[in-house]
């Protein structure tokens, strides 16, 4: 029953949060209305999200997000350094093919987004089978290191979260 009402709990949670931020009032009434909307809107939009994302360990997502934020902060300094101080010919950009084991589209999306959000790398494409990510690195003298870091630091965690 509940799962039919909330086919995508993460979405509904996000919507509640969104509404509370939108109305900018942390009152009970707003929360009631937020829950109402977070119920109705996903039901209305459900046809566009067929199937159901399995997420056995949703709480791990929080630690994942914190790690990513930290990485963003650190990497942006690196990227800034490259942009500001490297001469053109010193910048060693590279294409990196990153094979992945993730099967859920949601997980692939999050991995791709993480790569892009962390400065210095951009997810540029996916192989037609969805098994390999094409990553472009701004400055990567050692492409294998980048690939390994992606796989170990992000993919591994995502695999745990999405099972």
């Amino acid at each position, binding site marked *: 029953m509940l799962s039919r009402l909330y086919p995508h709990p993460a979405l509904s949670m996000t919507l509640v949060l969104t509404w509370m931020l939108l109305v900018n009032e942390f009152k009970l009434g707003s929360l009631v209305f937020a829950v109402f909307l977070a119920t109705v809107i996903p039901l209305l939009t459900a046809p566009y999200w067929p199937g159901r994302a399995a997420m056995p360990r949703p709480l791990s997502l929080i630690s994942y997000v914190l790690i990513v934020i930290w990485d963003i902060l650190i990497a942006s300094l690196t990227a800034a350094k490259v942009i500001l101080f490297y001469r053109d010919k010193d910048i060693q950009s590279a294409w990196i093919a990153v094979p992945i084991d993730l099967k859920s589209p949601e997980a692939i999306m999050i991995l791709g987004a993480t790569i892009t959000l962390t400065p210095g790398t951009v997810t540029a*494409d996916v192989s037609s089978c969805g098994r*390999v990510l*094409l990553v472009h690195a701004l400055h990567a003298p050692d492409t294998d290191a980048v690939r390994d870091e992606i796989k170990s630091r992000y993919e591994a965690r995502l695999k745990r979260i999405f099972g």
Partner: protein
Amino acid sequence: MIWEILVTALIVIGATFGLIGSFGMVKLRDPLQRLHAPSKATTIGVGVSLVAAVIELAIIEKQQTWQELLVVMFLFATTPITALYLAKVNIHRTVDRTTLPPTGVNTGWSTLAEDPAQPPKDS
């Protein structure tokens, strides 16, 4: 006061990163390199500025306003998509395809794939 210093710092940091992003876009030589500049630095810049705004308004001004966080979330959620599309445009239109690494599997990069839905016409 602490908050004010924090806000000031955040604003300065955010603005600096924002400028770096825009500057990188002018400076870098290769389209894909240029893609890195704004998609990161600007996001950081704006993100940090937004956080500054939240702190300023919510904590210093006591206006109880967390709305701007929503904008940050939204920007973070969409930037990867934008970047992906821009990269795909580059791959499709400007990148020398031979420089791309092989996928290592038996299918190619999706951007370069023959369109399954668009069978070639006879004429």
